[in-house]
């Protein structure tokens, strides 16, 4: 019962954020430089009427908020959305698959060269900008050894390079974090306790150290999802993936070009829509992380029940 109430209040919060995410870009565009506001003001329209117009743009009478969304969902952009999400999630999964074992190994490894080489690798991966990694990968796998297409989106192979590029940047970040999380966990009293019970080294890592380390890693990375999505936008543009970046760029620039009012209005919706989608993705991912947290950590489940 309590969980349901908690879930409902969470949903209500999400709705507020989503509404704001629709309203904010529209209002910004309306009041921003070169926006509708300055034009109307120069025509001598009163501030109150202008504000009403602004509201009407967010909430047009003839297309209620519902039709607006129905409208959105039928648009071509659904495809763009899925390619974008595929890229983002795929890169997280790949980064985690590499970072978790490598980071763990770096944390427990006693040999000194290993303790230097891996962290340096992580540092390099972190400090090279994603687009440089992208260029290097294109050079390697499309030019020097042409086995993968450098751009486009017409075969599954096309997804490989952008996903890898995005993942490569995250591996360092995540790996370094996993490494420090595992080293910290290995200092805990219960690890010493497990060793004193004669538990095998690998069982100590897998059964005792892994879960808490992953929990701290998730805690750290959940708020980073928005940043990750931003990176995904850059990479999309670079590999000419028809995703949200393309859509966002096109609609936003169409706005700036001062197209006729009918077209402009349509694109204004598009900007709002992309904004809305971003907000939605971040919210859903955070919700997912929270659920994951509940599943992994009995303390959360028990103490909030």
């Amino acid at each position, binding site marked *: 019962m309590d969980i349901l109430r908690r879930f409902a209040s969470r949903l209500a919060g999400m709705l507020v954020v989503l509404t704001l995410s629709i309203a904010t870009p529209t209002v910004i565009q309306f009041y921003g430089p070169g926006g509708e506001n300055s034009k109307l003001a120069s025509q001598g329209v009163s501030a109150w009427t202008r504000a009403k117009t602004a509201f009407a743009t967010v909430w047009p009478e003839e297309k209620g908020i519902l039709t607006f969304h129905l409208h959105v969902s039928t648009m071509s952009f659904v495809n763009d959305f899925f390619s974008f999400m595929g890229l983002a999630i795929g890169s997280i999964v790949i980064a985690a698959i590499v970072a978790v074992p490598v980071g763990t190994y770096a944390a427990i490894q006693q040999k000194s060269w290993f303790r230097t080489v891996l962290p340096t690798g992580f540092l390099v991966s972190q400090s090279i900008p994603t687009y440089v990694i992208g260029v290097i990968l294109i050079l390697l796998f499309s030019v020097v050894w042409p086995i993968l297409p450098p751009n486009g989106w017409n075969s599954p192979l096309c997804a490989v390079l952008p996903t890898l590029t995005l993942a490569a940047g995250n591996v360092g970040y995540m790996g370094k974090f996993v490494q420090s999380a595992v080293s910290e966990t290995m200092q805990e009293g219960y690890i010493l306790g497990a060793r004193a*019970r*004669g*538990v095998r080294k690998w069982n100590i890592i897998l059964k005792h150290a892994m879960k808490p380390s992953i929990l701290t890693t998730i805690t750290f990375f959940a708020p980073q999802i928005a940043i990750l999505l931003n990176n995904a936008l850059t990479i999309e543009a670079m590999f000419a993936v028809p995703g949200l970046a393309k859509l966002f760029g096109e609609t936003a620039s169409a706005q700036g070009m001062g197209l006729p009012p009918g077209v402009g209005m349509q694109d204004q919706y598009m900007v709002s829509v992309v904004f809305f989608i971003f907000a939605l993705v971040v919210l859903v991912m955070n919700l997912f992380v929270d659920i994951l947290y509940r599943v992994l950590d009995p*303390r959360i489940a028990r103490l909030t029940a």
Partner: protein
Amino acid sequence: MNILEIRDLRVEIDASDGTVHAVNGISFDVKEGEWLGILGESGSGKSITLLSILGLVRGRGRRVHGQAAFAGKELLSMRERQLRGIRGRDIGLVMQDVANGLNPLVPIGKQVMEPMLEHSICTKPEAARRAIELLREVGLPNPEWQMTRHSFELSGGMRQRVMIATAIACGPKVLFADEPTTALDATVQVQVLSLLREIAARRNMTTVMVTHDIGVAANVCDRVVVLYGGMIMETAEIDEFLRDARHPYSLALQSSMLRGSRETGVKSAIRPIPGHARTLWAPPVGCPFAERCLAAQSICHRERPSVARLSETHEVACHFAEEEANHVRSLFT
């Protein structure tokens, strides 16, 4: 019969600004079936002694020298794989860390079963059955239900009981208890102590208990080893220790043990020893206690005292052990 023989144990641990000489050559025996207390304050090297015997002080920047023979087998030179077979199976460890000694994410039942499975003592269902019995033995009410609970749902006393259950799961011959009651409340302390004593007696287990609390040692131990600065100050049967402790540090510990007004009727004056135990960045030149000792002479700072044997069971490492015992005692009491 000695079940454990420690010879010239030395432990060095590298820290960021030097090497800590935590244990500086200690030797003692543990007789089968006895309850040995290792007494000392923090930094005296008592916990690290237990852990290094179990091979838990290994790895980069940590050096353990000397010998520790368990039932004739030399532990310190043993490979990790063999030593793992001894930890938890032949020697169990109860830790001080009540708050964090159990994994908060693993149900306690699994943690009690773990040593039996790791040492391939029995099958999983059998281990589960035995775990329930163990939880019952350590006094957890409704053990079947407790199996699925987590450590954060238990009180400090209950957690310590579970830790005792994990330590005795494989029926070890020796139990190491590292400050097992320090983190607990007074009434719980008595509960856990009497439980430990009961279990040790029933299972005929040899117990080595590290403690800073003379009250605890005096009530359960057969023999004590007093440590300071990683060296043995005094070894004695408990009766000898209570009646005739010779080392100034033993006397200081006894006098700094607070006693209420109940027995004496008047509030006894507290005469604390000055100073505090320091980290040893080099092995001590003279007696490690010399800088705090009220009876110290110049020789104490220069030369390590040799061990004086006052009886078959009573040894004191003090330059003045055999003379002026009463004079030294008067300084402390």
